[in-house]
């Protein structure tokens, strides 16, 4: 339990000011822990410390990259923990009442996804229209939409799993409508990473509910066909794939960013390539926290979006293979505990919810880190709990709350019996 705080305290050697963050973070963790003890006493004991540890690693690296962002991130973590506490308090008796509002969640998910498209409050950042700007707060509603969609899918699939397996179109209707709308919306906003994530979650939950691999195969087939169509039609997607397959050119190509001729590694694939250099520079042991190189001799940041999409490259440089392998182990343990929650859950809704939430967590990690490592084309999404980003932190704390609620109930039933 004290692991997280110890970790933070040790990092405070880097600078005196970060001690404040350590104390503050430890206090916050204690609050979260007490709330959890009170509301979900039987919950899986590993999930919260693991989440705390991941958040701490993220906050430490964000602090190292820019103390200003760390302060904002700190505030968002407070918001996240509050939302986490509220969710636990509100749903501590029986979270399964959420099932009754499944269509609300489904429509809510669509609503949240479409929010950035609304004129006035929507905002385009890095070519993707995912942001909502209300007053001083910038928010990515898609992050919350993701949780809402999982709740909807869990509830709907639990109810219809037998009839779905028979493959009648009537039962598929609402599912396909909501899911289709979500996918369409994602393509409209050019948010490929999220599209991939949603599709993956959908297929995974469908498989868990129906046990039909044919559905998965069909889904993958449709996905490939769809991807090909999108690849043909969307220059944004084509660029991503080109950068993935051929990040280097030895001759100059047209650079859409500057409108001139340039080597691809100096233009569209610059970010990917420099991020790999950052990882390579880390080697086995890393440069040590705080000793990494992220700014040029002229003082510019070398890799844009370092503390959000590319935080893994920063961590890989400073902590080295040993450090990031340990980080990935933390994700694995979290994911294993999450699936364990699903296995021990008593009812279909809980099983689907826990499996969906956990798989979402794992897949999101894979999509962003795999993109950075050139395993798959790069699409910008956040690394759960570690990346800088308010909406992501809040959404992941909600995800954590969901898993803890489910595990509390499952363990309480087992303990009570």
């Amino acid at each position, binding site marked *: 339990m004290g692991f997280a705080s110890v970790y933070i305290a040790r990092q405070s050697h880097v600078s005196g000011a970060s001690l404040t963050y350590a104390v503050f973070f430890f206090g916050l963790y204690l609050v979260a822990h007490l709330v959890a003890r009170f509301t979900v006493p039987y919950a899986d004991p590993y999930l919260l410390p693991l989440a705390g540890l991941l958040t701490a690693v993220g906050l430490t690296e964000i602090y190292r990259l820019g103390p200003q962002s760390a302060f904002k991130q700190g505030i968002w973590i407070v918001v996240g923990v509050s939302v986490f506490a509220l969710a636990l308090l509100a749903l501590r008796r029986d979270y399964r009442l959420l099932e009754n509002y499944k269509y609300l969640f489904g429509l809510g998910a669509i609503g949240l996804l479409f929010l950035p498209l609304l004129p006035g409050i929507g905002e385009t950042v890095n070519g993707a229209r995912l942001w909502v700007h209300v007053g001083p707060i910038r928010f990515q509603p898609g992050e919350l939409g993701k949780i809402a969609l999982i709740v909807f899918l869990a509830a709907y699939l639990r109810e219809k799993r037998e009839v779905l397996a028979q493959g009648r179109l009537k039962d598929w209707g609402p599912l396909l409508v909501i899911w289709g709308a979500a996918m369409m919306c994602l393509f409209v906003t050019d948010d490929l990473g999220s599209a991939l994530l949603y599709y993956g979650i959908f297929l*995974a939950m469908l*498989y*868990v*509910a129906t*046990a039909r691999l044919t559905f998965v195969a069909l889904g993958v087939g449709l996905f490939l066909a769809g991807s090909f169509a999108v690849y043909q039609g969307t220059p944004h997607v084509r660029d991503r794939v080109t950068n993935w397959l051929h990040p280097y050119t030895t001759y100059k190509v047209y650079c859409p960013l500057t409108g001139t001729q340039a*080597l691809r*590694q*100096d233009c569209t694939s610059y970010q990917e*390539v*420099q991020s*790999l*250099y*950052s*990882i*390579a*520079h*880390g*080697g*086995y042991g890393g*440069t*040590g926290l705080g*000793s990494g*190189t*992220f*700014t*040029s*001799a002229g*003082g510019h940041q*070398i890799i844009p979006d370092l503390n959000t999409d590319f935080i893994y490259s920063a961590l*890989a*440089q400073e902590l*080295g*293979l040993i450090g*990031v*392998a340990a980080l*990935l182990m933390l*994700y*694995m343990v979290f*994911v*294993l505990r999450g*699936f364990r929650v*699903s*296995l021990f859950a008593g009812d*279909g809704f809980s*099983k*689907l919810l826990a*499996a969906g939430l*956990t*798989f979402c967590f*794992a*897949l999101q*990690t*894979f999509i962003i*880190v*795999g993109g950075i*490592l*050139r*395993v798959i084309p790069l699409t910008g999404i956040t690394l759960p709990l570690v990346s800088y980003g308010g909406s992501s932190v809040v959404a992941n704390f909600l995800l954590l709350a969901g898993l803890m609620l489910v595990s509390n109930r499952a363990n309480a039933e087992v303990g009570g019996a």
Partner: protein
Amino acid sequence: MNRQVNRLALLAIALLAALVVATTYWQSWASGGLQARQDNAIQRVVQFTIARGLVYGPGEKAVFASNRRKHQNGQTLFFRRYPEHGLAAQTIGYSTASRSQAGLEESMNDYLTGSNTNLSNAFRHVLDKLGGATVHGNDLVLTIRPGVQRLAQQLLGNRCGAVVALNPQTGAVYVMASSPTYDPNLIDEPGGYAHVLKIRGACGGASALLNRGTQGLFTPGSTFKIVTAAAALDTGAFSTSSGFDDPGYCEEYGRKVYNAGNPDQNGPESYGHVDLAQGFEHSINSVFCNVGKQLGAKTILDYAKRFGFYRTPPLETPANERAASGMYRYTKHGRVLDDNASRADPGRLAFGQWTMLTTPLQMAMVAATVANGGVVPKPYVVQKILGHDGSVVRETKPGNLGRAIKPETAAELNRLMVSVVEGGTGTAAQIPGIQVAGKTGTAETGVDHVYTAWFVCFAPADNPQVAVAVVLEKQVNGFGGAVAAPIAKSVVEALVHG
């Protein structure tokens, strides 16, 4: 549903495990390749956080390369400076912000950045890194004598050419001057590289970046007669008193190959009845043409190989900045070495024309071999590598590249070369109090009256301390004995007295 959940869990773990594998790939196998890439912006900065080792001459009198310290964003960055503004520029090379390197800066980069894999060194390096202290590279102490190097550069002036001087016993390079030269500080300045590329020198020829001493390939002309004479005497086929009739030409394949023109006469000189020693002293082509015909091209090339031809001479500079001497053939892939004796005209080869091309370093090695009693010294330019604390990381032990000729042959050649300076074509190299042994060379360039002028020598003849090769490109009516010998003389004087 538990079966599906289990399978899904397996998939999720497999995905995450793939990330561990991919990270391992980039951080171990692929790491080196990525670090070496020119567009690596991180390494571009990292290199500045390291205080590159200094490069200086013996006695630290002249610093060839140092660093300028600059504080930026809480980091101390080190920028390379070349305080001598181009002394031995082609040998020292440069290391720029855009990570292009040349010369010793390139080939000795591991030492200069302290990333060489000496165990204690590596350990200190890690400690420095962890402690956040500046990583200091190792310093290079060169064998180049800054004063004489500067003199050689001044003597070359605007003329294109090179001066190479080395210790015939140890192979330590004292002078490695190439002209035209450039200021390495310019390379990193805006437009500086383009400016350097435009430097032409009097010959209007190749770039100032070219190290003519080690890369420049020139027709050796009569200086190659040292090699031919070595073969003639060492094989026992001739003695210094072997007689020849010189009608002013030598007949080969039924055609006349004439002696060199004499500036005092119209048409080729002719000496009548001479011996090999006189032929060497006066550099008579017809004599060597006949020697070559009798020895055959293969024997001459075999001896050339013993002197180090057909191999890139060892030196600490990058391999692509050194060239092997030998016959060259032009193919569609460019210029390639050709050791096929059957393609050679032995007569012309014997007096250093035909397709033979040599570097000044190789010719200095030929002179040094004669001076060294027939053993080819192994040239080197880095005397010592010192740690930041002054400890010796590596010290060069003089070596050799094997015996080329018998000691007796070397002694005979020594006497022949002394006679060249005392009463032959190389009298301009005479130094009061120092007996110089040398050989002139005036190679035809294919353009009438434009020659490649050579002088190779060593001194003192009885106790050689220095061997020198001087080459000057595109000299109009410039004979080796007249234009190159005086430069060699000054360099020898400075090195022997200095």
